[in-house]
C-alpha cells in the first residue's frame, strides 16, 4: 500500500502546510471579508428598503384618508347645493302657482259678479216684459187697453208668488 511508505511523508506534510496555509491566508485575508461585506450590505439594503416601503405605505394610507375625506366633503357639499336649489325651485314654483291661483280666483269672482249683475238685470227686465206681454195679450183678447199700473202690480204679485 503506497500510503504506508514513509518516504513521501515529509514532502506531503510540507506541501500540505504550504497549500493549506495559502488557502487559509487567501480566504481569511481576502475572500471572507469581502463576502461578509457583500452579505452585510445586502442585509442592510433589504432592511432599508423594507423601512422605506413601510414609510411609503403609511404616507399612502394618510393620502387615501385625505382623499376619502375630500370626497365625502365634496359629496356633502354637492348634496347641500342640490337640496338648496331644489328648495328654491319648489318655493318659486309654489309662489307662481299661488299667484296664478289668486289671479284665477279674482277672475272667477269678477265673472260671478258680472253674471249676478246680468242675472239681476235680466230679472228686472222680466217684469217689464211680462207686463208688456200681458198688455199685449189683453189688448188682443179684449181689444181694450189694460191699465198699465194695475198690470205692473199684478205681475209683481205673481212674481212674488213664485
Amino acid at each position: 500500500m503506497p500510503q504506508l511508505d514513509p518516504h513521501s511523508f515529509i514532502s506531503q506534510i510540507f506541501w500540505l502546510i504550504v497549500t493549506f496555509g495559502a488557502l487559509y491566508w487567501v480566504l481569511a485575508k481576502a475572500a471572507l471579508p469581502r463576502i461578509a461585506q457583500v452579505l452585510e450590505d445586502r442585509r442592510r439594503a433589504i432592511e432599508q428598503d423594507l423601512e422605506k416601503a413601510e414609510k411609503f405605505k403609511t404616507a399612502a394610507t394618510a393620502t387615501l384618508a385625505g382623499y376619502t375625506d375630500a370626497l365625502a366633503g365634496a359629496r356633502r357639499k354637492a348634496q347641500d347645493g342640490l337640496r338648496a336649489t331644489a328648495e328654491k325651485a319648489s318655493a318659486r314654483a309654489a309662489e307662481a302657482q299661488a299667484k296664478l291661483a289668486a289671479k284665477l280666483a279674482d277672475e272667477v269672482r269678477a265673472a260671478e259678479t258680472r253674471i249676478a249683475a246680468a242675472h239681476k238685470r235680466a230679472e228686472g227686465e222680466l217684469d217689464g216684459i211680462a207686463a208688456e206681454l200681458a198688455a199685449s195679450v189683453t189688448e188682443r183678447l179684449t181689444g181694450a187697453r189694460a191699465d198699465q199700473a194695475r198690470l205692473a202690480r199684478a205681475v209683481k204679485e205673481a212674481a212674488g208668488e213664485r
Partner: protein
Amino acid sequence: MAGPLEQFEIQSLIPIVVGGVDISFTNSAAMMVLASAVAGGLMLLGIGRGAMVPGRMQLVPEMLYQFVADLIRDIVGAEGRRYFPLVLTIFLFILAGNLLGMIPFAFTFTSHIIVTFALAITIFIGVTVLGFVRHGAHYLTLFAPGGVSKYMLIFLIPIELMSYLVRPISLSVRLFANMVAGHTLLKVLAGFIPALYVGLGYAGAAVGVLPLALITALTGLELLIAVLQAFVFAVLTCIYINDAVHLH
C-alpha cells in the same frame, strides 16, 4: 494492467531536496496546489466586486460561506466566529481534494493517511491547547460527565479519555478509509472489464456492460461520499471546538 492500489502511488514531479530532506513536488503536491487554487479562486473570483443581486458565479461563494457559517453558529454558537476561517478552509480544502480526485487519472491526496492525519492531529492539538487556555486544569472535567455516581466514574473516565485521545485517529482514518475504499472499488470493478474480454472474448466484452453500469452508479455514490466526508470532517472539527469552548 495497473493494480487497484497503483493509483495511490506518489510520483515525484520536481525533485527538491533541502538540507538532506526530500520535499519533492509530487503528484500529491500538485493536486493540493490545484485544490487550493480552485477553492480559493472560486471564493475570490466568485464574489468578484460583490454585486447587490448575485449572479450564478457569485452565489457559489455566498452559499458556501452561509453554509459553513450556519454550521459553526449551530454547533459552537457566537464564540465560533473566530474559528470560521479555519473551518471553512478545512471544508473547502478537503471538498476540493475529494472532488478533484474523482476526475479520471487525477490523484486524490485525501486518500493518504499522512495528509488526513496531519490535519486531524493539528486540529486535535489546537483544540486541546484551546481547551486548557480557556479553562485551565478545569478542562480535565471533560472526561468526567456530571450527574454520574463516583463508582461509575472509575469506568467512565478511562473511556472518555480513550475516546478523546482516539479522536485524531478516528477523524483521519474515517476520511482516508472512505477515499481509499471508494477509489479501490472503482478500480477493481473497472479491472473486470478487460479481464472479461481477455477471458471470454467478445461475449465477455458484452458482459462487461454490467461492471461498467455498476461503476457509473458507484461514481455517483463516490461524489456523494466526497462531499459528505468533507462535511463530516468540518462538523467534527466544529464539535471538538465546541467541547473546548463550552466545557459541559
